[in-house]
């Protein structure tokens, strides 16, 4: 058995094809309606509403992992394709409408925020995991504070031990002056997000500066501190990138909920006033 993860291109393109077909049919339909001087926005609007409803189902399905509702992976793929479809349908729908008014503009903005956050999220979900893997460590997000606290304790007990055993405070002083800042909590967040090496550079620099003032024995302690600093660096990296992976949903989901609510109200208004 060869494990083949992910769906085959054929399968993906099949769904993309279906989505395109749906769009084209809707488009032609609206053109037909326009030609017969009807209100084509109704047609595109209803299809768009259907797609949006389907998109919001993904969130519900996630709450029902024990129901036989097709694997989440298929849902995710369809949600993604559906998201793009909704974008195209939105353009079709709003172009047909022309002007929109304040309510429409708010809805448009919210819709775009949802779409863009979705695209960004998709991009991050496809790119970041590999970056995390390359870091060479693996850690559960919620455990990061405890892990860093553990590292800090280890470092500080090392430094205490060094001071006691060798009787010099050079390492301890330098720790208090500069290194303790680093071990306090996750650092270099933005730099890590952008894939920088600042963190590594900083740690190396700080240890290098100190090295010349240490005896052979103290250097052994410094080496250990350095190893721990390196370990923390990788955890910081995870913290930054895993934070990204967690937080984009905090934009996407509330915005999507807002869009859904506004769409329903929009629909009610239309039904009441136009039909």
């Amino acid at each position, binding site marked *: 058995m060869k494990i083949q*993860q992910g769906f085959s291109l054929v399968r993906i393109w099949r769904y993309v094809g279906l989505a395109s077909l749906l769009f084209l049919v809707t488009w032609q339909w609206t053109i037909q309606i326009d030609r017969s001087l009807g209100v084509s926005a109704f047609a595109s609007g209803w299809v768009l509403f259907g797609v949006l409803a389907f998109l919001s189902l993904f969130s519900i399905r996630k709450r029902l992992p024990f129901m036989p509702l097709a694997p989440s992976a298929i849902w995710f793929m369809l949600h993604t394709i559906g998201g793009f479809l909704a974008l195209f349908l939105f353009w079709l729908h709003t172009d047909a409408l022309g002007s929109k008014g304040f309510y429409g503009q708010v809805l448009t903005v919210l819709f775009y925020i949802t779409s863009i956050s979705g695209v960004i999220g998709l991009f991050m979900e496809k790119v970041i995991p590999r970056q995390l*893997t390359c870091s060479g460590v693996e850690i559960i997000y919620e455990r990061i504070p405890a892990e860093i606290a553990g590292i800090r304790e280890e470092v500080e007990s090392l430094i205490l031990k060094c001071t006691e055993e060798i009787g010099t405070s050079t390492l301890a002083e330098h720790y208090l002056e500069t290194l303790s800042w680093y071990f306090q909590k996750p650092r270099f967040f933005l730099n890590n997000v952008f894939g920088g090496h600042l963190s590594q550079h900083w740690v190396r620099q700080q240890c290098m500066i100190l090295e010349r003032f240490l005896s052979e024995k103290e250097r052994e302690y410094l080496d250990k501190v350095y190893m721990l600093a390196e370990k923390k660096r990788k955890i910081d990296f995870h913290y930054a990138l895993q934070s990204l992976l967690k937080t984009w949903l905090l934009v996407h989901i509330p915005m999507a909920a807002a869009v859904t609510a506004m769409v329903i109200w929009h629909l009610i208004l239309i039904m009441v006033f136009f039909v």
Partner: protein
Amino acid sequence: MAITTQERPQRWDQPFGLFMTDQDVDRLLTIPEISAIEENKFPAHCSLKGILKNDARIVKYSAGDIVIREGDYGNSAFLVLDGSLKVVLFPGLPGEMLGRRTIRKKTLWQAFKQLWTQRKTPEVRDVKSQNQYSLVRATEALGTSHVFLQDVPAILDRNKTASLGKGALFGELAALGRTPRTSTIFAETDTELLEIRWQGLREFRKYDQGWRRLIDQRYRANALNAHLRATSIFSHLNDEDLQEVADATLFETYGKFDWHLTYNKLQTQEKNLGIKDEPIIAQQGDYSDGILLVRTGFARVSIDRGNGQQTLTYLGTGDFYGADEIFRAWQGDSNVGLRVTITALGYAEMLRVPSKIVEKHLFAYWSSGREGFRKRSLQSSVESRRMQDFIDRTLTDGALLEWAVEERFVNGTQAMLINMDRCVRCDDCVRACSAAHDGNPRFIRHGKTFENWMVANACMHCADPVCMIGCPTGAIHRSMSGGMVIINDDTCIGCETCANSCPYSNIRMVSIRDDVGNFITDPQNQKPILKATKCDLCADQISGPACVFACPHDAMRRVDFRETELDENTTGF
């Protein structure tokens, strides 16, 4: 017939029975089955008395108590000292009666109901409904518990049984061969048994002719023929020929029966030591004297590479190796030393079918008219080429397997493998697991990693389920259907034996609570009651394993490494 020896520096640090006295030992020596043993054949460091005192214990069962259960993995045999027992021959007793967990798939409605019935408090148990719990009765003496049958007469009516009386020995094959018990035996009357753990049993077999003959005969009669019959290369033989093969077959055990107890300690040593410490079953370059069949356990197939050994593949129960080399030698090729080294991974029980017998019953058959010689010759060379492909693999290509073998993940049949290049760390899998287990996740999305592959801390449902060895109530057992290893929460007494045995740390002990969230305690000592918990592959869920089902990025699989070749990402979705 060889049994590999091993050093036991702390041989009897932990005696089997805590309360065995010298009087007990003296009493045992008067029993005919024991007194027949030639005490002087035993070496000083491993005296008969020592074995009796340290590797055996006297246990008492009340009428109706189950002594061994069909399907259990035991590490001891029993000698009846007093009383009588019944062997349930046919049909086997139903799982519930043995204290097994009953798996009933939920209905759609029951599944859906979980959406709101799921509890906020962790590890809640409904104490009142645990009626099966009454099946377990504590035995004071050993600090452990027995499961008992409630309606023995009905069983005797319904099932075909056989009796065992004073002097009968049972359970020795499963204990020595690490195979499941084949039938259930319960006490008909109050009985007194001598329980001998596998270490003692092994010594008896080693130093005493009588025991050896007894055990070997039973082995050949009960297990060997069936195993050979199931092996593809001997499937064509008639009963008579098969018997001839069986008679000639040697059985050998390698490694330590309880490797899993020391495995985690070994992990901290340098990796390469692992393979260097493994008992060698066959050495690359040596002349092959027979086909090697794996009866239980795993064997690593490796070749010399640089300063170390490169693992090519591994053999599990039912696999064999060596036909190709002997076949080529039989055809007249010179220079047909073994192309690989075979070592025991932890513990392996091997069968060695000698060349002469193979030539007579296999090669003769291959070259006979019925099954074209050419075809078989071709097949042999296909196998040969397949092995050569393994040998030609670069270190990079083989590295993942090397790792999986090193970490013993090959033991798993349902290892939770996550492709970290796809995993977005969303924990949907954990949430799904939690949702499918009343709010309690049954695995940790964390574990050892290699490149982009992580084997998470979830029960792998091992082919060789070492966790099951020594469970006193049979609460942890292999499901009759599906083969997964599951725990019956009702009969679990929280003794932690399984959790300590699992070399992968995939069983977690939890303190259970009542509906309001208070810890449930033992009324006798006020200590919180523990339960062993682990992945049950969502046995009662209609959706199958919720974790895999819930992964939006198709990053997770439950795999058997033996059947898996890992591929790189194919598409983004």
